[in-house]
């Protein structure tokens, strides 16, 4: 594989934060708070390098499918990428030459695990996005965390996170993705439990990590199945083999092959792996197959990992609790970057997912977006509200990918990253001023925190999907994909209804939040009296983010006529020519989208703004059971505790008890029995064997004793005995003769 020098830009961008991390660990004592600046500088360097990389990539930012797939449908153009492979692990390659007289000798490729890096359009865009947001959040944290006693540790962890996240984006090997996947998970754990003195924070951190590990259990299974099936971890190589249009149906979805033209059913033929048989005439090849069921298992497994990381139902429960971490962490890790990694991986590995798996992804996304939105509507803690909103938005992205809107889903990832991190940082500003997350005691902060309020309004508009704000364009793209999919597959109309409901609720809850915090009059004067605008260090990042939250979705003309610029860039990396949305569908989607989000906004205005017409009190008291149900996140936490956590702990206790009272008892009883048997043997030995020996001895002794009685040494006795014996003898002889 040729390697491009540009890859080194990205290698540097990945490793600079690692250097900052190492510096932080080793020289924390001497550098103290300077570590904050080192970490910020490091990620800023990464940002600059990503920007240079991006500028260099611009000539290649053209979709390769647009033209070629029309004319030549048989061949999928491989998206342009800068790639490089570095030897890392290579086990057993020296093994094969030693195996003689084997028919396939030499034709088996060695199983290598290289460090492979692949920079395509998607990576380029995400690198800029991640490093930019991370830089801003580092900068923000310098002020936000200033009072914290573990200030330097905070930045050290952030640097480790940046390294892992960027490495995740750059790697093309699924094995490396898994490693970095776990690493971002551990950073998330460390940062959620950053204030580990509080038990609840630690529990939230544990929960986040363990729930993610449940997903990773699936990931590991997917990893194993793919490794066994393909003998490689290279995502692009597996993609290339599975992107073959010959394997796919009219909508380019991978479906179970039927037994046709000589190939058996249920097997996917990898034509690029056909091996030429030596000496068997030209064109004689050995076809290579992968079982379709294995692809389904692998796809579900990998997606399970993505469900964990991207907080999708039913593994989303960790994300709301993860808000226990410092707010900049929530913004960076639990809103903009790490939680999007699952969506990113689904996109990156898109050709792997078969039709059934994609449907599963779409449904999981739709369910998550509805659950997230319904729960967000009733939250009173604005940070938790934003967390559920993240679940919902990530569901949107998954839905988009699941229905085949590849670029739409990933485009929403980018726009969401900007407006959601802005919302979190704004929330951080509010918390910094009022020291509470409860919206019930806020209100009227508009005048006291004007910059924050205005920037938050931009993010609110963007996430509600109001036209001319970034969220509108991406949400619209997802909706269009869903509509197009429903047109192809009319049985799945529910996939249209759920996101529409979700969009309405999103507009409603996000405006509800803004109104409750910033609009009207303060509900608690002693809280509001301390409210003040945040320092410049904290308002500057959110201002920059607000600009991006506004413009990042724009097409060149701003009007929603052409494909938005960023979406077009991402499209250049599309692994297979995915769904094209027809113009009619696009206009329908725009219509729905505008109407629904305006409806949600208006509803929120009528209920919560200072122009409100309705009081929520009576409605809430009528719907109290529903509200409790939603407020507690559909009681899923309690359900899981009952169905999973307690049984697992029960089994653990059972095993512990079995070990102690079962196995160990068995061992002890065996020992006791052995001792019993040996006691028995001892008794036998003592009383029977020894007894016999002693019995003989005693008998002989007794006889001897008796004998001794007559050996008195007195002549008279001897003579008497002799006479008696003689007499006896005579009597006996007499009777015998007679």
């Amino acid at each position, binding site marked *: 594989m040729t390697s491009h020098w540009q890859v080194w830009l990205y290698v540097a961008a990945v490793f600079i934060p690692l250097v900052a991390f190492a510096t932080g660990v080793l020289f924390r004592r001497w550098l103290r708070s300077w570590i904050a600046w080192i970490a910020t500088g490091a990620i800023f360097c990464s940002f600059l390098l990503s920007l240079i990389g991006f500028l260099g990539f611009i000539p290649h930012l053209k979709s390769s499918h647009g033209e070629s797939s029309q004319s030549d449908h048989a061949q999928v153009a491989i998206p342009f990428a800068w790639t490089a492979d570095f030897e890392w692990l290579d086990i057993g390659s020296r093994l094969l030459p030693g195996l003689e007289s084997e028919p396939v000798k030499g034709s088996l490729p060695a199983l290598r695990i290289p460090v492979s890096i692949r920079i395509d359009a998607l990576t380029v865009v995400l690198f800029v996005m991640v490093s930019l947001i991370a830089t801003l959040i580092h900068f923000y944290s310098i002020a936000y965390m200033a009072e914290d006693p573990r200030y330097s540790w905070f930045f050290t962890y952030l640097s480790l996170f940046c390294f892992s996240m960027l490495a995740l984006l750059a790697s093309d090997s699924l094995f490396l993705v898994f490693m970095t996947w776990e690493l971002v998970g*551990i950073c998330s754990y460390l940062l959620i439990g950053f204030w580990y003195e509080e038990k609840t924070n630690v529990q939230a951190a544990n929960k986040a990590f363990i729930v993610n590990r449940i997903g990773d259990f699936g990931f590991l299974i997917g990893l194993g199945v793919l490794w066994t099936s393909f003998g490689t971890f290279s995502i692009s190589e597996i993609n290339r083999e599975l992107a073959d249009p010959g394997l796919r149906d009219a909508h380019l979805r991978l479906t179970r092959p039927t037994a046709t033209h000589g190939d058996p059913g249920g*097997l996917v033929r990898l034509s690029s792996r056909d091996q030429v048989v030596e000496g068997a005439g030209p064109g004689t090849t050995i076809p290579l197959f992968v079982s379709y069921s294995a692809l389904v298992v692998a796809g579900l497994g990998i997606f399970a990992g993505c469900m964990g990381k991207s907080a999708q139902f039913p593994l989303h429960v960790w994300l709301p609790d993860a808000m226990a971490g410092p707010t900049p962490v929530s913004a960076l890790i639990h809103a903009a970057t790490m939680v999007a990694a699952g969506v990113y991986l689904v996109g990156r590995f898109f050709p792997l997912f078969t039709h059934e798996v994609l449907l599963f992804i779409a449904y999981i996304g739709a369910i998550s977006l509805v659950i997230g939105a319904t729960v967000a509507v009733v939250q009173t803690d604005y940070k938790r509200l934003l967390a559920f909103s993240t679940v919902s938005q990530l569901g949107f992205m998954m839905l988009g990918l699941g229905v085949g809107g590849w670029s739409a889903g990933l485009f929403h990832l980018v726009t969401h990253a900007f407006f959601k991190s802005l919302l979190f940082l704004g929330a951080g500003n509010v918390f910094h001023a009022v020291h509470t997350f409860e919206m019930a005691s806020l209100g009227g902060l508009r005048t006291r925190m004007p910059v924050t309020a205005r920037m938050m309004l931009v993010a609110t508009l963007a996430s509600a999907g109001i036209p001319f704000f970034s969220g509108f364009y991406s949400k619209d793209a997802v909706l269009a994909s869903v509509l197009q999919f429903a047109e192809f597959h009319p049985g799945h109309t529910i996939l249209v209804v759920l996101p529409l409901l979700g969009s309405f609720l999103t507009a409603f809850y996000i405006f509800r939040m803004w109104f409750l915090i910033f609009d009207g009059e303060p509900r608690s004067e002693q809280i509001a009296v301390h409210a003040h605008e945040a320092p410049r260090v904290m308002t500057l990042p959110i201002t920059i983010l607000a600009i991006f939250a506004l413009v990042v979705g724009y097409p060149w003309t701003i009007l929603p006529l052409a494909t938005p610029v960023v979406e077009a860039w991402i499209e250049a990396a599309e692994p297979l020519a995915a769904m094209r949305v027809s113009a009619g569908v696009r206009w329908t989607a725009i219509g729905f989208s505008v109407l629904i989000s305006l409806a949600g906004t208006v509803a929120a205005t009528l209920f919560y703004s200072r122009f409100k017409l309705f009081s929520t009190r009576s409605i809430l008291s009528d719907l109290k059971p529903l509200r409790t149900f939603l407020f507690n996140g559909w009681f899923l936490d309690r359900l899981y505790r009952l169905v999973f956590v307690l049984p697992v702990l029960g089994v653990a206790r059972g095993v512990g008890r079995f070990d102690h009272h079962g196995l160990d008892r068995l061992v002890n009883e065996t020992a006791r029995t052995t001792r019993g048997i040996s006691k028995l043997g001892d008794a036998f030995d003592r009383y029977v064997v020894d007894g016999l020996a002693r019995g003989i001895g005693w008998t002989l002794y007794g006889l001897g004793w008796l004998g001794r009685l007559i050996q008195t040494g007195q002549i008279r006795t001897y003579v008497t005995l002799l006479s008696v014996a003689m007499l006896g003898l005579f009597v006996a002889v007499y009777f015998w003769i007679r």
Partner: protein
Amino acid sequence: MSDDLLLSLLWMVPLGGAVLLLLLPRAFVGAARMAALGVTLCVLCLTLIVFVRYVSGDQAPIHRSLADRAADNFLNSTNLDQTDAFAGFLTTDAVQVIDAPGDLVVRRPWIPYFNIQYYLGVDGINLGLLTLTALISVLACLASWNMDQHQRGYYALFLLLQASVMGVFLALDLFLFFVFFEVMLFPMYFLIALWGGPRREYAAIKFLLFTLFGSALILIAFLILYFWSGDASATLAKVPFRAHSFDAPLIAKVTATTSYYGPSVQGAVFLLLLIGFLVKLPAFPFHTWLPDAHVEAPTPISMMLAAVLLKIGGYGLVRMAWPLAPAGAYSWSMLAAALGAISIVYGAFAALAQTDLKKLVAYSSVSHMGFITLGLSAMGLFSSTGDALDPRYYAYGVVGANYVMLAHGITSAGLFFLVGVIYERTHTRDLNALGGLMGVMPVCGVLGVVIFFGSMGLPGLCGFIGEAFVILSEFNHSPWIAAVAAFSVVLTSGYILWAIQRIWLGRNSTWDGLHDLTPREILIVLPLAAFTVLMGVAPQVVLWWMQPSVDSLVRDLAAAPTVRAVHETLNGLPSSQPVAAERPHHAMRGAKAPVD
């Protein structure tokens, strides 16, 4: 220094040290620990010399397999009658020693009457374990610094333990191996029974009896191999083979190239060796001696037990059970893999239930040791069409198993030491009573968390590489067993995170005023933490010298004719002839051949 002397010194130096310590006059008792430390450091230096000799130079032993090197050193009996090999050894005086210098193999007659040799050798498989033993001995010796009762006896037994463990790892003669294996019991028994906790007699006798039970089975297996008369046509280098040998590489060569030992006798030998070494490993259901031994043993002895003594079980599996009976291993591979997976999950569940920190770590050892069994038994040796040999995936399993041994040696020593440190200060190991130590002992906390995460198998730390390899390799053998083993990632993170939380995190004013690690303690933990990171970030540090030996091991296992015979019987294939090249082969195991 000739390599013969060098290898012998590895076990003789600690043995000599033990004797010297016993002769130490009462007046110099205080010097005992310095002397012991000196001896262990000396052994560490010798091990490093062995390491350097093993890898450096064009003619370095690393380039040739142990069996090839062993064949250069041989005992030539002038009076040997080829038709009755056993009779030839009655003439004890006629044995001539041929010794190749610098190849790290030592071979001398020991008890010629029974063809027993003094036979030591080093390759990539035991090199790591020797180094680990030497390193952990130094650290455990440092950890014993505050041991003040019967110092001379303690350190003498400690050195005797080290000598016997080094001997076990070095020995290539089965009888010699067995002797070292048994000698090891004696110091260990007394170290637990005399310096242990309240139930020390119980724990010590339990340890002793369990191991004796295992070693009896091992001895039976060795004797079967010794006395078996099998396929009379089997030859090795054109010399007919007639058993009556304890030469492990020779028997491995015989099983790898001939059918002298048939599949059924190999099956029996394998099961005996498997159970014998699983007791030592330990694996479910033979593990119950371990938690008791750990709980009662003093901290340094726990370190030795977990880091080194358990590896003897793993090493026995790698060096004896699998190579001496490959067909047996192949036919019982599902059972062995299932035992491995059960150990992994059972150990993790049991660890989750513990409230005694030391027991938790002990059960986590049971769980981790399961990966050794599992990796070795991931014998998916044939491609999916069933006839072509494809041991590529298996190589990952064996490398993984060997890697787990070293990684666990590092992390478990660190964990037991930290448990000791915490117990020394707080006088409790109850997880419900601990907590909040991060605030008062930050250095201990940070290093401890690193080692705990290493034990959890976090990528970038040492536990991950081996366990990931084993699980991935097992998918090519049995996906179901692999999935069961993979489930342990959830349980492991559960008990590790829970333990971290209940030791270090939270708030607890009871511990105010406890002092952090002393420089001596940092000196012990820091190398372990450093290796935890190094072996996770750069596995090549270990793999480059380990791999050639593992490759030749895997090649011998895979190419054994008896393995193919078993495979053909199991799958109802026609008996072995080179298979037609036209047959398509599939990437996916279990995929059916296309119907032409």
